């Protein structure tokens, strides 16, 4: 059977979070999830807040990503994000209290509203991973 793996790298400005071979990756793009297999046409897309799901690689197969960009070229997917967390790095209690805080916050202006919904989305995705 032909080789079905391709390489996947997750980078933050501070470190290389992950560099591994995978058989499938599902990335949280800004407008929904995008599944990627070997041989995909080059892609450059913006990411939203969400969870990166990988298959065919050792743990961790799930990563929380806080927006960024993904590039697919020559069977290599590179993800740039400002914040990437492994499930073990998320403190459930802290996220829950953040979620509470965001839910109770009053947002009157549009700016505040946007920020609030963003915070809510972040917390919910993090909790999903825990």
């Amino acid at each position, binding site marked *: 059977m032909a080789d079905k793996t391709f390489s996947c790298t997750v980078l933050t400005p501070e470190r290389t979070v992950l560099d591994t071979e995978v058989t499938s990756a599902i990335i949280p793009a*800004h*407008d929904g999830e995008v599944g990627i297999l070997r041989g995909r046409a080059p892609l*450059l*897309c913006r990411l939203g807040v969400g969870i990166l799901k990988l298959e065919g690689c050792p743990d961790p197969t799930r990563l929380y990503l806080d927006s960024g960009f993904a590039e697919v070229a020559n069977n290599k997917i590179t993800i740039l994000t*400002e914040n990437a967390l492994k499930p073990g790095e998320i403190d459930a209690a802290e996220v829950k209290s953040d979620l509470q805080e965001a839910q109770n916050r009053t947002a009157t202006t549009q700016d505040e509203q946007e920020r609030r919904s963003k915070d809510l989305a972040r917390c919910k995705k993090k909790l999903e991973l825990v």
Partner: protein
Amino acid sequence: MANRRELVKRRKSVRNIRKITRTMQLIATARFQAATNRATATKPYASTMGKMVAAAAKSAGNIDNPLLKTNESGADALLVLTSNRGFCGGLNGNVLRLAMETLNEKRAADQQTMLNVVGKKGIAYLRFLGEEMDMQIDTVDEQPGFDQVSDIADTMMDAYHEGKINSLNVCYMQFISAGVQKPAIMQLLPIAGIGDDAEEGTDAAETKAEAETTIDFSPEPAELLNELLPASVRMRLFQCFTEAAASEQVARMVAMKAATDAAGDMIRILTQQYNRARQTAITMELLDIIGGAAAIS
């Protein structure tokens, strides 16, 4: 006698100083390793970011992004990165000299300039000179966090969008290698030469192969650029910070090595002086005794 005791005292204090500087040297060496690792860890992100920007820019064709255009109305901004702590040789002095030169040039050209300073040492120096600072930041420590830096970048970009500043230059100690650092000025805004970034790290064949394939963009290249450009500005500023941090540790390491060596030399000289004084005293005493004995016989 008094002279001898003085020498012993001085030698003791120099020994203590040497102990301290040697410890500081060792600490700086350990931190330097960590700081260089952090500085090099930013490289893959930065080069990928450069490639993405270049790819998007190529496909977007005519780019109309405010971050690329030069404002005409406001002041120039200069961001000076210095350290929070001293004992690092000429590091801050060199950075500040370059900063002042730039500032004076701009003043000579009648260009209004906003001065933003990071690091306690720079703030203290410029306050002493009586310069007016628009922003003083002394909360960034030896391990600059991306959050902190991106906040600073966002503040500057907001000012740029509002037309308060025409350009943003960063004055910092560039970390070229463990042996070479030099004060440098980098233009952060407006973003200059997006194509240039791509050249680094990609060889010609790869660039050509990329040019021939069509890339799927999501969203459209132009819209993507609106997100990519600010991100790359943040990244470049972050690189400046990590490089400055690495340079600081190297500078401290070198300065403390020199101080330790100088203290060692001084101890040697003091020991020599002490021995000479001791010997002279003994000779004198002997002469006294012999003289006394000769007088009796």
